[in-house]
């Protein structure tokens, strides 16, 4: 039996519709109405809930007064990737969850994310970049990883007058924004447009196809540059640890999404029946995109309950609205094959700890494709020889992103903390400020 995995399950126009902007931006009138709802809190809890500390009441007040340039500057001053954060942030567990309107009526938060998108979209439609570069300092910084942390760090360093070279294994910058987030969240090539906007500050160059390796070592970079910022993300994915895991049809969700994001939709293959294993946002993004590519049945299976899913309730509802079936309290037991092809997955019921239940109750889901989304892990190999301190599988940094090595800083998913775009932006920004301060205060520290 041959698994039914195919491209072009839907006509091109249906694919375009399915991967268009899931939540189109506000019109000027909608933005003004929504902005007027904001109480302009003095002790605004939304700010505390934002990892990048955007002065939310201030930018919303500016939208209300039609000072959109001021609104955009307030956002971008704190978060240069405010445009993509407005699209991908789980605002329902960040700023909007804390909006005081929710204390008056549940689910009636001011739509902070939508307003942030309105202001940043306006800014990106302008010719001029809102920030200017300081006089060139002559300092050079290498950044490994062109994702949100690396980009935020690069922009802040460039503003301070330092020259930045970004290295990334991909041909394009953007990291997860370009390769990892569901296409309909960052539609219309937004990730690239945002990078064009960001690079307009000047002083940032890019080397694609570059990975830390024997030919590009951290030690050499530390020699060639005044500082190095590691934003290398999570290079590995967890395996199921089951037999037949490498057969056709069993794939990492991350790879599935990356292929979809970097190829025409009509060239993205998907099974007729898809099983996604995992409970995070990657699992949701993979499941929904599989449906939108034309999969007939998509089942997302998570070994515990809703309370411990890292996908937010909003994300879960989004998946369900898109026709994804969510099954809880079941862990994969066996990949079923037939004639050396995938036939399905057998799951075993789990107990309240997510472990196999005492009774060996099982069920089998027929599947042409299994997408694994059970977590990504930090791969220390590229820097294994550099004696950099690693704990609990992440690079250890201080509050400003300094690693245990002089002149080496790190941030984003490769360090501890929430694996959120907005947290990565904060890490990059803070590390840039630390690098700048270290340059300014103590001169360049030497090994």
């Amino acid at each position, binding site marked *: 039996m041959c698994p039914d995995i195919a491209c072009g399950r839907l006509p091109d126009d249906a694919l375009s519709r399915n991967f268009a902007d899931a939540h189109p931006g506000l019109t000027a009138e909608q933005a*003004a*109405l929504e902005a*007027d709802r904001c*109480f*302009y*809190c*003095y*002790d*605004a*809890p939304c700010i*505390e809930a934002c990892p990048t500390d955007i002065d939310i009441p201030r930018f919303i007040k500016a939208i*209300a007064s039609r000072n959109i340039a001021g609104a955009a500057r307030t956002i971008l001053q704190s978060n240069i990737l405010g445009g993509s954060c407005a699209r991908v942030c789980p605002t329902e567990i960040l700023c909007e969850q804390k909006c*005081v309107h929710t*204390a*008056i009526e549940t689910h009636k938060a001011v739509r902070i994310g939508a307003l942030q998108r309105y202001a940043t979209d306006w800014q990106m439609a302008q010719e001029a970049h809102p920030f200017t570069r300081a006089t060139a300092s002559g300092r050079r910084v290498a950044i490994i990883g062109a994702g949100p942390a690396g980009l935020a760090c690069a922009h802040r360093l460039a503003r301070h007058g330092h020259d930045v070279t970004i290295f990334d294994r991909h041909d394009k910058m953007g990291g997860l924004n370009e390769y990892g987030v569901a296409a309909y969240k960052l539609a219309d090539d937004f990730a690239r447009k945002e990078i064009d906007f960001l690079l307009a500050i000047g002083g940032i160059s890019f080397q694609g196809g570059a990975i830390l390796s024997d030919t590009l070592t951290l030690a050499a970079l530390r020699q060639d540059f005044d500082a190095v910022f590691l934003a290398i993300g999570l290079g590995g994915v967890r395996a199921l640890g089951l037999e037949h895991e490498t057969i056709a049809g069993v794939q990492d969700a991350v790879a599935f999404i990356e292929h979809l994001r970097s190829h025409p939709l009509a060239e993205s293959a998907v099974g007729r029946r898809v099983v996604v294993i995992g409970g995070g946002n990657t699992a949701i993004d993979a499941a929904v995109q599989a449906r939108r590519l034309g999969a007939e049945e998509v089942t997302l299976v998570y070994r515990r309950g809703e309370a411990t899913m890292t996908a937010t309730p909003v994300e879960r509802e989004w998946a369900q609205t898109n026709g994804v079936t969510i099954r809880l309290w079941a862990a994969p037991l066996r990949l079923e094959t037939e004639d050396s092809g995938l036939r399905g997955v057998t799951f075993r019921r789990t107990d309240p700890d997510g472990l196999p239940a005492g009774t060996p109750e099982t069920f089998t889901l027929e599947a042409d494709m299994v997408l694994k989304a059970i977590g990504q892990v930090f791969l220390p190999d590229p820097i294994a020889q550099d004696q950099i301190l690693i704990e609990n599988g992440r690079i250890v940094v201080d509050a400003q992103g300094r690693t245990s090595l002089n002149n080496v800083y790190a941030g984003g998913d490769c360090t501890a903390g929430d694996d959120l775009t907005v947290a990565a932006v904060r890490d990059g920004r803070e590390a840039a400020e630390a690098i700048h301060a270290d340059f300014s205060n103590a001169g360049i520290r030497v090994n």
Partner: protein
Amino acid sequence: MADLRTNFAGILSPNPFWLASAPPTDKEYNVRRAFEAGWGGVVWKTLGEDPPVVNLSSRYGALEFEGRRLMGLNNIELISDRPLATNIAEIKRVKRDFPDRALIVSLMVPCEEHRWKAILPLIEETGADGIELNFGCPHGMSERNMGSAVGQVPEYVEMVTRWCKQNTRMPVIVKLTPNVTNILMPARAARRGGADAVSLINTIQSVIGVDLDAMAPMPVVGGKGTHGGYCGPAVKPIALRMIGEIARDPEMAGIPISGMGGISNWRDAAEFMAMGSHALQVCTAAMHYGFRIVEDMIDGLSNWMDTKDYATLPDLSGRAVSRFVPWNQLNMNFRTLAHIDQKSCVGCGLCHIACEDTSHQAIARQTGPDRRHYSVIEDECVGCNLCAHVCPVDDCITMVPQPVDSEMTWLEHPSNTHRLTA
């Protein structure tokens, strides 16, 4: 159900809600629709002499505030721009078909007795219930020595009122302009001239805003603007004060007052009645939402009166007037203190920052992760009410009057060493 029937200077109407003299009462078509919608009366848009005036294109400017339209409205429209005979014929037909409604005709002709003498019989002949003298229009007509140009000179007010009283049997209502320093001067002059009633306020001279692209006041007419007359919800406080001033003035005692200026709902109506009005006029609210808004005005006023056991409008009219006093008659021993209901506090901090930056530093603030706590420092609180006004949550901050054991006004206050009487 409360009885809303109104007897205003002998003019009867089924309820106190009349449409003010303005665009909504310009012609038969509108007035019929108004009466069908339930309005108790209308004051027909001001008639003048032929040839009629000419109105401009672009007539209104509006004040928007934080997303709410028409907080204030200004207009540069003049009086009726239709031939007198057309208006007269229409008034006659409407009055014949709606005999139970009040139909008042607003008038404005130059300050010469023979001109008033000439127009009054034409109005009388329509069967209209009364006339309202437009001494208020603050734009366009005032430059032609009519409207507020008359209303601002008490001698003229008295003179023209007297001419009208001498030349018609109809009740004469004098409409007052607020564009004066002391509303009592023209009001008393109207009474001396024999006015049966006064109505107020007419619109306030205003520039509603500036078009920052055209660099001209709004509304922009072919690149330029002019001042207009301001009305709508924003002018209500000005109207209430002027009505109260007249209602409590001994020289004006007993004169019927037709109150207007920003009445948007039954609650406004009740306030205008309480401050001394006997009947009411409305315009902007109808221009914003249509004639149907009178339904809730009637219904809401009646329901509220039932809860307060006011059986008729005279039971309500003027109820607050005896408690509208000069500042120097307020009790200086009275003290009220802010109280924050911690359970309903949403933690926005607006009370704190308002008090801290602009008042008396009387709201203490403790913050921490997920914890915002505001408390009133009673020794510092002067009872100004600002915190209660800025709080976005209903009844979260209340002002609690403290027990008072005695009364002392400024007249007796020890700091008033010179025993000033004001």
